[in-house]
């Protein structure tokens, strides 16, 4: 499933649509601790987290996540939104808990 299809199929809010929306999603990945995500998240993951600060954006770019999904109603702060625009990273948001958001992505991928 591509990032653009994820945007269409799941009812997530689009906070920023990046350049890579025809990127293929490998699988959802969940973790809020940055250096664990950095070390363990496979490239092209759809990263589900509650951390919406600028460091999330840096980790997503450097570890090659395909997009970020902010769960539990988490917000992107202003510097993070600027960074998302600058780096062309797709950031989506949902009120769903982390597990439910990741499950929804998984189910759409395997539908």
């Amino acid at each position, binding site marked *: 499933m591509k990032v653009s299809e994820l945007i269409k199929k799941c009812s997530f809010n689009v906070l920023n649509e990046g350049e890579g929306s025809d990127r293929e999603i490998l699988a959802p990945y969940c973790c809020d*601790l940055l*250096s664990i995500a950095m*070390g363990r998240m496979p490239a092209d993951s759809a990263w589900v987290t509650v951390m919406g600060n*600028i*460091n999330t954006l*840096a980790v997503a770019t450097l570890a090659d996540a395909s997009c970020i999904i902010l769960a539990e109603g988490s917000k992107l702060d202003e*510097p993070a939104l600027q960074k998302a625009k600058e780096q062309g990273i797709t950031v989506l948001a949902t009120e769903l808990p982390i597990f439910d958001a990741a499950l929804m992505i998984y189910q759409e991928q395997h539908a």
Partner: protein
Amino acid sequence: MNNDIIVMTYEVPADDFTRAGEASSSVKGKLKKMGVNPDIVRKVAIAMYEGEINMVIHAFGGTIDVIVSPEEIMMILKDQGPGIEDIELAMQAGYSTAPDNIRSLGFGAGMGLPNMKRYTDDMKIESILGVGTTVTMRVSM
């Protein structure tokens, strides 16, 4: 890639989380443009980011030199921070002295140094208490 040796130098500002990661992002972009293998670019980006963030959180910023040769990419991260008292302990997964305000940003898992070791082919830490820390990492081409 040609046979030239390319040196990139970055200043890492103290306490500035909004800029932390910029040096690593810049190096990642440049290596990509040079046509370096994407797996190697990813390793360098991850290891360098962890080192860069450590300089911001645990020291007072510093300088990073990245030396790209046909054989390897070498990163030298130098700070004049407080130094690391027990390097073996600091290298253990889960060990962190990050304060609460830093943890609330998502840092402090104690995985930065272990990631740096894991994603590079060679890593050396030299540290003197009260003087500073130099971390040298190499990733082979």
